[in-house]
């Protein structure tokens, strides 16, 4: 029963991943932790393994649609480990709660910017709906 729930969450996570260009971990991690009984650390690590094929399949499809700037993606991917290192060091020296609240605030600011941009009338807006 919980395996079925985890599989359904997996499908939904893959759908969010393909639709919005994220890995799907936002749903994989709770699926693994809640329905399959993994600890938080193991759920996050195991989620990464599920993300690899999801991202590969989604990139393959998006390449076909002409929506991937391969060089840019590789530059971002290649440099992110530096950020991970900075993040891990910082998370051990700054209170976790302060980090969570700071990033939550940043996420809300970015969300607001996306909404403003999306609602702003643009000359090319008609082409998109065609």
């Amino acid at each position: 029963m919980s395996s079925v729930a985890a599989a359904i969450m997996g499908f939904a996570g893959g759908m969010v991943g393909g639709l919005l260009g994220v890995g799907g971990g936002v749903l994989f991690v709770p699926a693994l932790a809640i329905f399959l009984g993994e600890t938080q650390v193991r759920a996050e690590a195991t989620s990464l393994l599920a993300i690899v094929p999801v991202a590969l399949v989604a990139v393959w499809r998006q390449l076909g649609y002409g929506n991937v700037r391969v060089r840019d993606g590789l530059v971002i991917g290649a440099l992110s480990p530096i950020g991970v290192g900075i993040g891990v060091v910082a998370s051990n020296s700054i209170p976790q709660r302060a980090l969570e609240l700071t990033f939550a605030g940043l996420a809300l600011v970015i969300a607001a910017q996306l909404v403003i941009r999306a609602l702003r009338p643009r000359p090319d807006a008609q082409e998109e709906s065609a």
Partner: protein
Amino acid sequence: MASRTLKLAAIGTAGGAFSGLLGVGGGSVIVPLLIVWLGYGAREATGTSLMAIVVIAAVAVTLQAFYGNVDPPNAALVGIPAIGGALAGTALQQRIPERTISLLFAGLLVVVAGKLILS
């Protein structure tokens, strides 16, 4: 051109830092920064973000595997249906306007923020 590369480098670093700090996926940082900062269309931002995520997740899972934290059977249980979901999600994405993708993404960021605040 050089400043463009610097921005890409900053986006990669920010995405990685976000993951390293909070265990949130890099994509939730990469996609909006590509849109807001580099003027990407929403579809291009998601496709390019996924390219980066392939690299990021492959490196990170390899490291986690050394610590014995990865559970392949459970990854398959979640990840195999997720492949179907990804196919459906990318196909659906081609049929909706870019501004709808941006608005859905804003919704995802609100969920992420809510999770961080409530954690």
